């Protein structure tokens, strides 16, 4: 059975679980527990294990959507999942103290996945904080990853249209990177 794996990553509270819920065609399997880092994110529950959703294509082909815990104490899971994944949706909160720094840190952590496939950055909560601008994200990416153009969009993780568009942009970008020989191509 053909399958494609897309990861949803990002810091706590960026909306990974909500984003998967917005596009999954099955009831999302989410396990949450008490937030042990409430001093960082004031949220009563947070993802501590995998979130899992699916989009069914023709026949038995499916896209598997995995939400990865945001806390770094779970980074052993990142290593396992990023080997299976073709692409990643990285969500960051625009009202976090340093969202651009967080984005760059995650991109470094998942550089191998980016080199092999592709990444789209979704900036959530831009309605709460309009700064930094998307141009500022683009400028930071141009410095950190010269020559690579990572798609960055403002998103509302609850919005099905936004998250569908993010997935389509991710897949389109992965295919074009492979077309122009910019990735260690792996069939998607």
């Amino acid at each position, binding site marked *: 059975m053909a399958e494609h794996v897309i990861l949803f990553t990002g810091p706590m509270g960026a909306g990974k679980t909500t984003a998967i819920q917005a596009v999954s065609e099955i009831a999302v399997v989410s396990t949450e527990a008490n937030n042990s880092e409430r001093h960082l994110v004031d949220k009563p529950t947070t993802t501590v294990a995998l979130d899992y959703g699916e989009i069914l*294509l023709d026949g038995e082909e499916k896209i598997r959507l995995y939400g990865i815990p945001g806390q770094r104490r779970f980074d052993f899971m990142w290593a396992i999942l990023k080997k299976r994944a073709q692409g990643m949706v990285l969500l960051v909160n625009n009202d976090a103290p340093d969202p651009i720094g967080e984005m760059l840190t995650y991109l470094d952590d998942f550089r191998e996945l980016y080199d092999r496939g592709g990444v789209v950055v979704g900036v959530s909560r831009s309605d709460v904080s309009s700064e930094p601008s998307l141009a500022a994200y683009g400028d930071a990416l141009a410095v950190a990853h010269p020559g690579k153009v990572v798609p960055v*969009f403002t998103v509302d993780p609850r919005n099905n249209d936004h998250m569908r568009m993010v997935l389509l942009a991710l897949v389109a970008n992965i295919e074009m990177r492979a077309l122009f*020989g910019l990735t260690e191509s792996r069939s998607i």
Partner: protein
Amino acid sequence: MDEEPTPGTTPRPTPMGWAQAAIAVNSVLQLSIPMLLKLELNDHEPLYIDFRHHAFAWSTPLTSFPADAVLLGLQTQPIELDAPLLFDLPGQDLDGLLWLIGTNSFSGARASWLASDDRYKLTRWPNLTQHIHSMRQMHMIAMLGNAYLSSSELAAMAGVEEPDAQRLINALSLMRILAQSTEVPAAVVAEQPVAKRESLFARLRAKLGR
């Protein structure tokens, strides 16, 4: 031949479309100096752009963008960086307006500020969650994100008419998110395995695209 105005009547203004607005906006953005721009359009309230804040104000929602509007007047005004605001901030993000002006001007011909032998590549993606776009446009944007392409190369690769590719290039250029070069050679396409079916993008588009 131009019509002679009838004595005693006001000469009709020469109809202008979005191309004139695009040229004006592009020239202001190239100067990078603080400027206000007022566009007067038939059947619509004036449109104000404050380039200091990359924002605009207009009573017409962009979802009802009048592609065939007639531009009756256009005024620019240099302004101090700290001069009073023309409208309440944050206003609307200018990129959404530039996207629509760019795709609706020049009737699919090359924008007047672009050269005929250039190739283009994105410097950053447009914020597609905020712009009304087609799946074909997204596909072309992904191409331009990864290779320098001319409008004809882009059209051929995407399987669209060249005016459609040119409209997109005009818009991205107006938004100042395109690099352009006459020096870069044609992009080389990597050898691809023989496709047994449509791409995943095409299948996902069929599933999710609207």
